[in-house]
């Protein structure tokens, strides 16, 4: 079952909806805007979208689980995207993931217990010349080695607790 925060303030959903005509073709854009605002798609927001566009909830759920840009679970404050495009893959992206897993106790697709980081693998961010690449929120880190990861994460406050003793 999907866990989510309860009682999100939905006032922003209404202002997002106001920007779009009531046409199905704006569905993806609306969902993306909600995703950007809340870091995920709150369930109540989907109900609002259903009522606004007159599209069955099942279609929204189908969209939300089909497109990778959409998520039904809240993401971390910092979204770590490790690129696993081909260029990054053959230059050792899996080692980066292992390192992050070790440091933050989080696997791809998960959020750290303190809710600060979520880890994702993405299929190419189009910065292959800098492989392997990691993106945290919108900041790119290129030509990485596993040993560099710890310092970078420390720049985001690391994870709560004494992870340095590891």
């Amino acid at each position: 079952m999907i866990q989510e925060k309860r009682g999100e303030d939905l006032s922003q959903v209404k202002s997002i909806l106001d920007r779009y005509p009531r046409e199905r073709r704006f569905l993806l854009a609306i969902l993306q805007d909600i995703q950007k605002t809340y870091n995920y798609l709150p369930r109540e927001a989907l109900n609002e979208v259903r009522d606004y566009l007159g599209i069955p909830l099942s279609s929204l759920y189908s969209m939300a689980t089909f497109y990778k840009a959409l998520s039904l679970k809240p993401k971390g404050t910092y979204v770590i995207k490790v690129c696993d495009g081909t260029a990054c893959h053959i230059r050792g992206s899996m080692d980066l993931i292992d390192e992050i897993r070790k440091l933050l106790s989080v696997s791809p697709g998960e959020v750290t217990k303190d809710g600060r980081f979520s880890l994702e693998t993405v299929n190419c961010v189009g910065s292959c010349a800098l492989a392997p690449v990691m993106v945290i929120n919108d900041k790119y880190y290129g030509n990485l080695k596993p040993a560099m990861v710890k310092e970078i994460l420390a720049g985001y406050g690391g994870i709560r607790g004494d992870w340095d003793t590891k």
Partner: protein
Amino acid sequence: MTGTPNNSGKTVLVCCGTGCLANNSMEIYKELKKRVEALGPGFAVRPVLKTTGCNGLCEKGPIVNILPDDIFYCRVRVSDVDEIFEKTILRGEVIERLLYLDTSTGRRVRSHKESEFYRRQLKIALRNIGQIDPASIDDYIERGGYNALKKALFEMSPELVISEIERSGLRGRGGAGFPTGYKWRQCKRVNSFPKYVVCNGDEGDPGAFMDRSIMEGDPHSVIEGMIIGAYAVGSKKGFIYIRDEYSLAVRNVSKAIEDAYSRGFLGRGIMGSGFNFDVEVVRGGGAFVCGESTALMASIEGRVGEPRVKYIRSTEKGLWGQPTVLNNVETWANVPVIIDRGADWFAAIGTDRSKGTKVFSLVGKVKNTGLIEVPMGITLREIIFDIGGGITGNGKFKAVQTGGPSGGCIPEALLDLPVDFDSLDRAGSMMGSGGMIVMDETTCMVEVARYYLKFLSEESCGKCTPCREGIRRMLEILEDICAGRGQEGDLELLLELSETVKEASLCGLGKTAPNPVLTTIKYFESEYLAHIRDKRCPAGVCRKLTSYRINTDLCRGCGLCAKKCPAGAISGKPGAPHIIDVSSCIVCGTCREVCRFNAVEVIGGRSE
């Protein structure tokens, strides 16, 4: 690059493509700007400072190019800004150590145009990138932008535009290489309105960023191409579908559309003609299958990106069931040049059946990684060794992967293959959108095939049986092989499933999905057999089939590996050769990475 060339004035171009941005180029731009602005009103000829799109040579970024002298600085740091400003911008002196070091000659060159990396290239689709500020429509116009549109609208009939594109021999740059002019003609022929033109900017091939660079670095070229295409087929509405991850591309294209409206290149009565055309940006949702035309259209319609059966072409029934022309970013960017300079000029470039140039992202284990544009027909060897400067480190070339997950791996024996649509097809690969990933001896070809199938198993829409179930089972077999559970008969089964997936799948994703498997079996069968029969990964990638050993002749006993080993598996006295205890080794490769004497060797055949 100003309207009236002013030789005494300097233009400073700071590359702000994604590669350079990641290396702090925006900071360099800001610092330079601060100094230029501090010059005060008394300064006669003020240097002009611009941010540009990707120069292509991302490996050497951040890049600062100073015109008109064309001084090309690489790997610039913020700490270099003072020196660049004082010496080069103010006094015209060249800072030797920042110049580009040509890997093939070992010499530093002043202008990048003298380097091997650029000398072999021919820029058509990338003509403006790195030279203009993508946010400035004036920059685009100064370099001849929107001339082609004017020519098309006032000197050419739609029919003439189509025949010009046909004569040019332009083929779709997105993958299959369908003749662009013929596609337009099919659409024009259908007597049903409205008609749509669509730009596919959902570049999703891992290892490819050609379209990204064009949309970021020269968005107007795409828009101009689309307006011309719309005029030719009789469309009034266009959509540019951009991958959501490409936030800079979304921003730059949106800004360009806005500017094009305000200058009368879009909207009603374009340039005073009777032609109307509107275009809008649609952000993709993050689904590789949306690169497939019918899935992309479903996505624009606000649905799940599932493709539909294509026995009736999109040019007849596409978006909302209406005639639709869909081309990819690079194809559209070629259109204005062809109209401007003529079909004959374009058709003189390239090979008999593949005209013009192709943009590739040359990445992987190659020295000069980056974005290149080369005439069709150039050989893979020239691309990888002359332009790319060969393999990184002292590695040995093993394979080059072209065409993304739908393409294949091409071995050394075929390096002299000319790069064009048909030759790559014959080799079992494809042009695809232009990703070119170089692999060396440390790349395991079985693992590469596994990697692509894993990718496709996640990216398949899951609608049809052969693609969804076939890829899943092929992946299962490959995962087994990589983990040492390969069985006799696996290769035959892979080949048989490949045929079914290739022939019976609904869309292009499934129809090409087996290519990475087929080509790696075809060209690297012995590597598969080493995994299956000898339980050994010759490249040392598959952990279950790899073990490490310290070469006692090379080991100096520095103890670094023992210190870094997370499993405590390495022991030895200081100064004496160390030993890895295979039973506790977790094959993480840390020792191999940290050893300064290359003493850690990969051996296969880990017995379990």
